[in-house]
């Protein structure tokens, strides 16, 4: 439990992100080429307007017929129709690709997430992963669905428009080039700062919503401790932070916009002025000047879109880096293929540290006999949970060994490990899906009858049958919410289905209220029947019923033996036991006979059916 939560997941570097993105694009092959071609065609047909209007203007100036004007108008209409068709084709095809790429991306990410090494899952926590799963995928969706296609269209349109202007009248178009250095420098300045600014805004807003959520959920505590003003201050502080973050990006835009806005109008002015001068001196026609002027007015839209999406693209790239980064977590074990000989679980001279130099376990030796029940007790921070994780094969020991049937647990394939030993914690997650879905995780091949008999064995069939749709009832968030005790029973049923010979129970029932806990203990009794059990116990009756009790203090096992032996020994366990039974301080002597007759509760083993009558 004293796990440092600094173990954040890696983030990919720029080269990796680029390689990944280009593989994604290259995979699309011909389809991508098709999209580019249709965008180009849409762009080209869109260029007819200014050119033909120029022609009309030129013709009118020289004097023309209605028939000629009608014909040009018809051609213009034809181009508009063609452009609309190409736009439709291009947009649709690029959406098809974008959806496909994005689907592949998120599926690939989920595949990486569910194959993360056990030790990473235990230590890194789920916060960071959850952010990647939600916000980063969301940011990617904006990039893939909108930013990438918009930027592609904008670039194609802008380039084609420029080309058209130059083809129409190179001399008239040439002066517009002076704005490009201006646009480039201003935009580079902006893009260097903008993504961090927008990312900060997002962080600040999510902090703001988290604060409001805390205020909502913690209403009772706020009332009790008089934290009302403090929560209001927190809210105001969040607003202040959001305001500062917003002011920053606003300042960036205030600097940048005048440059871009001015850069949009200069080419139009230049085309009119220079074109007009050229026309007046006979070096250009009115038609040419009109067409180029209109081209430059038409150029504003794609350039504006292009610039507008660039920062979103940068944000998308940083999200992609975090998604790709998950794949960089190195495997924490390599299966050697060795097969365990028997079910004997052993720890020999085990040392372990989460942070180098700070050992949490100092040389643990423990020989677990098959079929035995061991209870681990001891004060918080003694290393019980850590030892539990090592005994379940989640972490490998730093020094020494943890073996089953002579094979180190970390040398086993994960599927095989699950058949040997399982860790059961307080965490009882119910997945979104049906009850049956939740159970079949552990054994996909199980049929409904098998599921029912497993539920019956842990005394859970009654309430499952009573659910609106029985086994097919949808549970989890958005569905029916199960009580903590029911959720824990689902977890136990999964264990029966997974069928490991050894169980490590980490305070499995401690957070439940006593009445629910009692029922659950009976379920647990059914699960542990015929299995080896190591239980990290909060409640002393669990220890009392165990074959052996291991008392852990400061990363060492300081007492080990049966309940009676430890009571006879008069150590810390005996003190605690005496205190629990209200028999006065242990200093008054050992209490080997101190068990009141009334306490016959068999909380694990259903060997005495008469004790379960409520």
């Amino acid at each position: 439990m004293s796990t440092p939560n600094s173990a954040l997941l890696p983030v990919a570097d720029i080269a990796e992100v680029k390689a990944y993105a280009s593989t994604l694009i290259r995979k699309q092959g011909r389809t991508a080429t098709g999209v580019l071609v249709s965008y180009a065609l849409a762009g080209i047909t869109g260029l007819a307007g200014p050119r033909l209007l120029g022609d009309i203007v030129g013709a009118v100036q020289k004097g023309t017929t209605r028939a000629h004007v009608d014909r040009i108008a018809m051609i213009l209409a034809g181009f508009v129709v063609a452009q609309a068709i190409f736009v439709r084709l291009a947009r649709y095809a690029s959406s098809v690709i974008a959806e496909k790429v994005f689907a592949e991306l998120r599926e690939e990410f989920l595949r990486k997430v569910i194959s993360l090494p056990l030790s990473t899952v235990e230590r890194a926590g789920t916060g960071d992963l959850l952010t990647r799963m939600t916000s980063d995928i969301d940011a990617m969706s904006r990039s893939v669905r909108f930013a990438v296609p918009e930027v592609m269209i904008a670039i194609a349109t802008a380039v084609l428009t420029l080309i058209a202007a130059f083809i129409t009248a190179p001399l008239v178009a040439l002066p517009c080039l002076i704005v490009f250095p201006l646009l480039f420098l201003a935009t580079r300045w902006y893009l260097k700062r903008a993504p961090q600014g927008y990312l900060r805004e997002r962080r600040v807003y999510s902090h703001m919503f988290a604060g409001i959520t805390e205020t909502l959920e913690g209403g009772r505590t706020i009332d009790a401790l008089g934290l009302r003003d403090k929560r209001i201050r927190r809210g105001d502080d969040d607003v202040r932070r959001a305001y500062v973050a917003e002011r920053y990006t606003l300042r960036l835009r205030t600097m940048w916009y005048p440059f871009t806005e001015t850069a949009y109008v200069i080419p139009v002015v230049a085309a009119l002025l220079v074109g007009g001068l050229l026309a007046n001196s006979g070096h250009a026609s009115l038609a040419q000047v009109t067409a180029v002027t209109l081209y430059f007015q038409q150029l504003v839209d794609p350039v504006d879109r292009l610039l507008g999406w660039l920062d979103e693209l940068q944000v998308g790239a940083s999200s992609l880096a975090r998604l790709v980064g998950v794949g960089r977590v190195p495997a924490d074990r390599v299966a050697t293929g060795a097969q365990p000989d028997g079910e004997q679980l052993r720890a020999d001279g085990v040392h372990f540290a989460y942070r180098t130099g700070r050992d949490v376990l100092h040389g643990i030796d423990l020989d677990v006999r098959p079929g035995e029940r061991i209870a681990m007790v001891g004060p918080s921070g003694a290393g019980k949970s850590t030892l539990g994780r090592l005994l379940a094969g989640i972490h490998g020991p730093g020094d020494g060994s943890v073996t089953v049937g002579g094979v180190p647990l970390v040398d086993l394939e994960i599927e095989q490990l699950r058949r040997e030993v399982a860790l059961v914690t307080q965490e009882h997650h119910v997945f979104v899906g049906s009850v049956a879905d939740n159970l079949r995780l552990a054994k996909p091949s199980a049929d409904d009858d098998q599921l029912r008999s497993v539920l019956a064995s842990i005394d859970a069939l009654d309430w499952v049958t009573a659910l609106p749709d029985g086994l097919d009832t949808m549970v989890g968030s958005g569905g029916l919410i199960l009580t903590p005790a029911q959720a824990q029973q689902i977890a136990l049923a999964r264990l029966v289905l997974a069928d490991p010979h050894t169980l490590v129970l980490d305070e499995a029932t401690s957070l439940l209220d006593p009445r629910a806990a009692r029922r659950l203990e009976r379920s647990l009794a059914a699960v542990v029947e015929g299995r080896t059990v190591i239980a990290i116990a909060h409640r002393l009756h669990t220890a009392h019923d165990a074959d052996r009790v291991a008392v852990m203090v400061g990363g060492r096992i300081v007492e080990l033996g049966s309940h009676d032996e430890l009571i006879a020994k008069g150590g810390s366990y005996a003190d605690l036991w005496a205190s629990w039974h209200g028999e006065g301080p242990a200093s008054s002597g050992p209490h080997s006979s101190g068990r009141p007759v009334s306490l016959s509760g068999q909380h694990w083993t259903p060997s005495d059916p008469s004790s379960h009558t409520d």
Partner: protein
Amino acid sequence: MRVLPLADPGVPDVRSPIRFLIWVVNGQRATLTGGMIFGIIWMCGQATVPFVVGRGIDQGITGHSTSALLTWSAVLLGVGIVQAASGVSRHRFAVANWLTGTFRVEQLLTRQAARLGATLTQRVQLGDVVSSATTDAGYIGNCLDITARLAGSIVSFIAVAIIMLSTSVELGLVVLIGVPVLMLLIGPLLRPLHHRQTELRASVGQLTNFGADTVAGLRVLRGVGGEREFFTRYQARSQDVRRKGVSVAAVGSILDAAEVLLPGVFVVLVTWLGARLAIQNKLTVGQLVSFYGYAAFLLAPMRIATEVADKWTRGLVAAKRILRVLSLQPVLAQTTHPVAVPRDGDLTDTTSGFTVRSGEFVVVAAAEPSQASALADRLGRYVDPDGEQQVLFGNVPLTAMALDDVRATILVSDKDPRLFAGTLRDQLDPHRRASVADVDDAIDAAVAHDAVESIPGGLDGVLDERALGLSGGQRQRIALARALLASAPVLVLDEPTSAVDAYTEARIADTLLAYRAGKTTIVLSTSPLMLDRADRALLLDNDRIVADGRHRELVSGDARYRSVVTRDEESA
């Protein structure tokens, strides 16, 4: 721009959504006006460009006048610069409008949530309403943000209409009637698109939830298996989202095409009619070019008009939801003429027959945990007792005292005390009243040193949201230390050690007793380790105190008591 947050967001008009919006608008009239002025300049600037270009062509090129060409080019540049400057100013005002509106509503909601406190926790479904209301604040901001562009659209539309009608009534009417007709034509296409987009959003939401759910249950998944199963299910949903996305694109791309086609055809129409007029010399070539420009420009005000309709509708709906929260009242009635809280005295609950004497340390074991919590709720006045029943402190009913005074005197630490993000020190001593030694003593008493040490930076270390980095037992002990440090005259602790191991619990029982010596303390717990330390152990069954005495006497003498505290099922 006003500096945010506002020192006081004010008292909103909650009588109706419209009145509320008017109240919001009245709070920021200056920036709204500023935004409108610059919006008008900016859009009129845009509308002027085709006019200037047309004049330049007519006088400068057709008229072969270099000076006219220079003049109109200079005017065009000037218009461009004015447009750039007013555009930026308009944007700044619009952002100020959005921020002021959104954050002011956000501030109101935070104040309301803090004021409601336990009322919110007691009525769970309200939580959802409030959290949706916080996102609704942004919609109010959107309503305000768009006013600048709306003003610009209205004025520039009128200006262009006047210019066009004065140039050519015929062509002017075509444009002025044609543009709104176009917008109406595109309208029907939007409905199926919105429909499919809503569907897509719903399945994207489901997919995200499925992913989040997988991550949340990852330990379980990696522990017992089912990865392949999950991947298959995720993939199926992901492909479903892909198909829906493509179906949105099928409609969306038609809309994109229509946005090219309809205005395009319209521009062709204007150009064609204009050219015919030009042949008859009813229109100059420059004016023809201008009309081409106007036809393209007028689409912008029309787009803004539809955006306004959309944002204002959403804003009204949002205002309605926000008002549902802002008009909520706390469940407990405040006393109009509160009596001062007695300095000291016994605390009595007539419902259950429970009494604790001043300075006593009692532990109440309840047969049903929910009854214990109900007792705690009554003792701290989180609910009022039924009918004639009362809770008295020093013989004064709690209902006669000011609620804040009750809270300051009787501290109830419930079963699920919340920790908030921030430094640990701030957590333990939110009001900054305790000395370093006091804080240390409280941590000692709660046996919480290991929890403090597990946080990088110790007391100055930062807890994440809801302190999720700590284990359940650690959180519980930090909350206990906080409750102790508040040193309330009466302290009620509901199951303070339920997530703590027996060793630690035994130590806490000892330290607690010493720490609270002389101060009234009520612990609700069935743990023998706790009950053994108490001055008196009490048994609560069927909402009545049914046993009262020393733990050891009760264990041996009272079967009901024994069955509850030792979990001995035989005697039950």
